[in-house]
């Protein structure tokens, strides 16, 4: 069996912390109004990228995920506006 990768928290060095915890591409999904997709979609996209069937998803900067709830709310409002109309 392979060696275990252990990640430790908290890390006092912000730069170090960024390297240890990757910033996820589920943020891509949320930025594009796809809150329902991740993290399954992210895993799936990474797998497809590894198989050279799709482009690798892009990671985002720290703290980007904190805006996720607002994006989810705007997604819902957008979907309702589109489906129910005025």
């Amino acid at each position, binding site marked *: 069996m*392979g060696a275990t990768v252990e*990640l430790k928290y908290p890390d006092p060095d912000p730069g170090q912390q960024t390297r240890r915890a*990757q910033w996820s591409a589920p943020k891509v999904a949320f930025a*594009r109004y796809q809150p329902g997709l991740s993290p399954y979609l992210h895993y*799936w996209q990474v797998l497809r990228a590894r198989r050279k069937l799709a482009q690798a998803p892009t990671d985002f900067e720290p703290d980007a*995920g904190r805006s996720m709830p607002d994006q989810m709310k705007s997604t819902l409002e957008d*979907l309702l506006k589109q489906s*129910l109309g005025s």
Partner: protein
Amino acid sequence: MIATAMLSAFEAFLNDPSAVLPADSINPDPAEFDDSDLSDPALAYLSDDALPCPDTGCIIAVIDDAIPFAHERLRLANGHSRVASIWVQDARCRSGASGSDLPNGIELRGAEIDDYLARARAGQIPGEDAIYRLTGVVDMTRQTTQSTAFAHGHGAAVAMLAAGFPTSDPTGRRHPVIAVNLPPKLTEDSMGTLTPPLLLSSFLFVIHRARRLCRFIEKRQGRDHGSVRLPVVINLSYGVTAGARDGSSLLELFMDAVSQSGAPDLGDIHFVLPTGNGRLERLSGVLSPGDELGWRLPPDDRTMTPLEIWGPTRAGLESELMQIVLTAPGHNPVATAFSGPWQYQTLVSDGAGQEIARAYYTPRLVGDNRWREGITVMINPTCPERLGEPFAPPGNWRIAIAGSAPAGEYEICVQRDEVIRGFRSGARQSWLIDPAYRVHDEAGRLILTDAENGGAPKVLRSRTLNAYAGGRRSLRAGAVDAQRRSLISYCSLLHDGQGGDCLAVVDCAITQPGMVVSGRSSGAFGLLSGTSLAAPQLARWLATQLSAGASVTNRSAIRALAETLSETPGPTPVLPALRQFPEF
């Protein structure tokens, strides 16, 4: 324009949909939706002789796999189709026809279906099967599971239970049908990995076409604009086993919001879903900080294995975040180390340094700076799908909530990961292991409730409902057997231990599982089981009640109505058994 909605909502997905949709199903240039559906006879939703009365009509919508839209049960005695519109999401896209506003697949409207049915009656084409082939719904040259050709598939059974009426029954005319055929690859993926965008687009489609059908009826009958507002009952006999189950997912939020607000030019909208079939699968449990559970991963699983943990709600995410500990067979325990929302990290790697287990931190805002923390763990397949890919060791894994985590209940749920009947995915279901969980009693009978189990098991039979059905307004249908009218052992339980908001007869008896259901061809039948068959019965019953003038706008009112009409009103009302196949 519906295409805009779908494209803007799921742009990235649609840029690379090849995992689910064939390339030739993609519409390269979606058109604006205009009013031609109200004037062009070729785009008509229904024949004038099939239009419902605006006062008693109620649209039944079915979103499923391989719905046989040419089936006799979806026609009237005059030969006209009751299917106003069906969207076949993975069919080869065509130009210059209905559905040109859709991002993929084809749409067939009542007028076109009527034309095919007339040609079949005249002997110009050889029957129903030819209709499916000529429309491209069945295409054996495509590299996909041909579920549309199954003799008695899931969609045929569900659609006929929800909306099928004998041609001799005039009630059928009250219930025009709007349907969506989901792609087979979506059905094959029991985890629902790629389900949300296609389900949401299906909801958008149903609501949009329902509104247009109302406008169409107004136009054909010379009524005022906005005067026809048919209610809509949408059946979705799909589900997954892992999720927050608190109504906080986008799917649940959307269903709740649509049911609550409705559309200004449409009647009430109701969603009906199955309660689920996972009560005894050992997929759900509750842990406290410091608790640990075993997690058995079977060998030869060629799909990933996900598990979700949902913590208590907390104020803000400024202090230490939720932490879990995962232990793979032969490895040391590894704790998560998240520092902010939507991070992921590798938890376990193999000897070559390749990742075999990963975790995502997925908190949700559920109120005024109130968060519900969540972590999703993804384990690689235990049998690599392709040579050279890293794979996880099968056997007994362990998962724990860190002792330092905030006090409260942590719901743990294993995602559904099984082979769907008729599909080949190589999936194998994992499950939780708890020494306090007893499968059988001393007499060898299955233990069906947490109370009967005794002790304090961490793996539960309650809280096992379908994770799409945790919203405040969607209706959950559970299954009982015909002989005793008691919950069937597989029927999942809500948090309060009930089998749903309403129950419907599915299995013949506890010793005789299965229900006789309609097959793909008119007159064909098969035997199926599961709460997927209870949901369409509830949808049908509700549509019938709305058609008869019942004014029920929410879950409790619908349940109360069912209680007054049921011979078995409590503890959960059992709907009258459906007589699908009347005796002559």
